[in-house]
């Protein structure tokens, strides 16, 4: 019998997933303005000190803040009504405070979503994995930087972090949730044999591999040289053909040819910070609203009224579009807690009139 976290136990999720799938198919394979997911930074405190953290957690930014539970419950209800089907809980490190995590899960009601955690795996043992599966968590993503223990531990700033991450993924798989091995890829490592070594390991273990492209944000702010270039992108394209378990949020997960991009998912996948600010995505540090002060619908409408987030982009704006990064994401001090305001950085001409706005919920 499928476990609680299984898709087959989540009828509301199936309905929303199907609606998303049909929309994308009928829209030439593009995500358009269809709602997809919520990325929630539940709390920014972390036990590791990763070199490329995009939330500035190693600098101790806002590590005590979190959304009030009543706000979180309302946001989840609104997200469900608007057709959002994915809910990615991240941090910081979620498993530092399991009490916060489980009361938040209760408020979100994960039985309505493909809900997953993105974690460094340090505190994810067998018992915790079972508890998460029982709480309707569908997937757990664990980030790994290298198959070389010392390299991973150096990047993460803590010994034992590699071993714990590797073990965590095994516990996730054994508990019946979807195990995802997350890899950050940029110009600095796209052709590194160590990257392909990780891909092979993930495939052999029957995990899914999620590629996050390196972005010049947070600890790597202003470092545009880390961004993928055309050659790197072509290399990823070829790897995608070879490793069928490879996933990027920008790629069409249902594409049997393993070639198509649904497009950059700004606003389709919103990012909410622990103080309620809503950014266009985890890596585009441009504020489009605040869930404590506004309804999610109002924020989504405003976000999609900005042409850069409304129009199709086959590449990731924050990780691959150097022009966009230079123009809108390179302000000194810009971060998830000090985002640029959309109304300040985009001219009036970049906004679509509400009467011409079509959003697909």
């Amino acid at each position, binding site marked *: 019998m499928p*476990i609680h976290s299984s898709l087959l136990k989540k009828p509301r999720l*199936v*309905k929303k997933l199907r609606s998303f799938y049909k929309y994308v198919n009928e829209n030439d394979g593009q995500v358009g303005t269809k709602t997809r997911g919520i990325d929630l930074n539940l709390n920014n405190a972390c036990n590791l000190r990763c070199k490329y953290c995009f939330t500035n957690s190693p600098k101790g930014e806002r590590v005590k803040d979190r959304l009030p539970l009543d706000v979180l419950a309302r946001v989840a209800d609104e997200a469900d009504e608007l057709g959002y089907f994915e809910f990615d809980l991240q941090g910081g490190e979620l498993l530092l405070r399991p009490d916060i995590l489980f009361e938040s899960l209760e408020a979100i009601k994960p039985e309505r979503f493909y809900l997953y955690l993105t974690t460094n795996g340090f505190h994810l043992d067998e018992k915790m994995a079972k508890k998460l599966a029982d709480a309707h968590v569908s997937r757990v993503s664990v980030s790994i930087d290298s198959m070389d223990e010392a390299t991973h531990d150096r990047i993460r700033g803590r010994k034992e972090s590699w071993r714990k991450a590797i073990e965590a993924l095994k516990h996730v798989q054994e508990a019946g949730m979807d195990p995802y091995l997350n890899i950050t890829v940029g110009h600095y490592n796209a052709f590194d044999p160590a990257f392909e070594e990780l891909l092979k390991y993930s495939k052999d273990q029957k995990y*899914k591999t999620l590629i996050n492209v390196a972005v010049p944000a947070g600890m790597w702010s202003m470092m545009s040289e880390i961004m993928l270039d055309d050659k790197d992108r072509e290399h990823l394209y070829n790897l995608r053909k070879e490793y069928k378990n490879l996933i990027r949020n920008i790629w069409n997960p249902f594409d049997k040819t393993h070639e198509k991009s649904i497009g950059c998912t700004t606003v389709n996948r919103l990012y909410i910070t622990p103080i309620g600010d809503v950014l266009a995505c985890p890596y585009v540090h441009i504020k489009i609203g605040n869930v404590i002060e506004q309804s999610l619908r109002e924020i989504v409408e405003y976000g999609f009224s900005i042409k850069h987030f409304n129009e199709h982009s086959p590449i990731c704006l924050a990780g691959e579009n150097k022009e966009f990064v230079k123009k809108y994401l390179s302000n000194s001090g810009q971060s998830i807690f000090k985002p640029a305001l959309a109304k300040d950085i985009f001219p009036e001409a970049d906004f679509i009139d509400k009467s011409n706005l079509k959003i697909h919920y």
Partner: protein
Amino acid sequence: MKQNEENYKNCFSEAFEIEIEKISSDLEYNAIPEWDSIGHMTLISALEEKFDISFETDDIIDFSSYKKGIEILQKYSINFS
């Protein structure tokens, strides 16, 4: 019809990208890594395309095994006997 069963099996093989020989009638959801949530929706879409049908949400949820899928498809007038 034998052809329908062959088409049915091919859909599993295409959706999960595994050899047709590995598709047994005992196959169940989550029993192999390929039949996860993404695999399930890919399978549903492959079957809809092949048999020109549109599944009800309840049927997508009930589709928990190879055998159960045959039962469900019969509701859509796809004959396997």
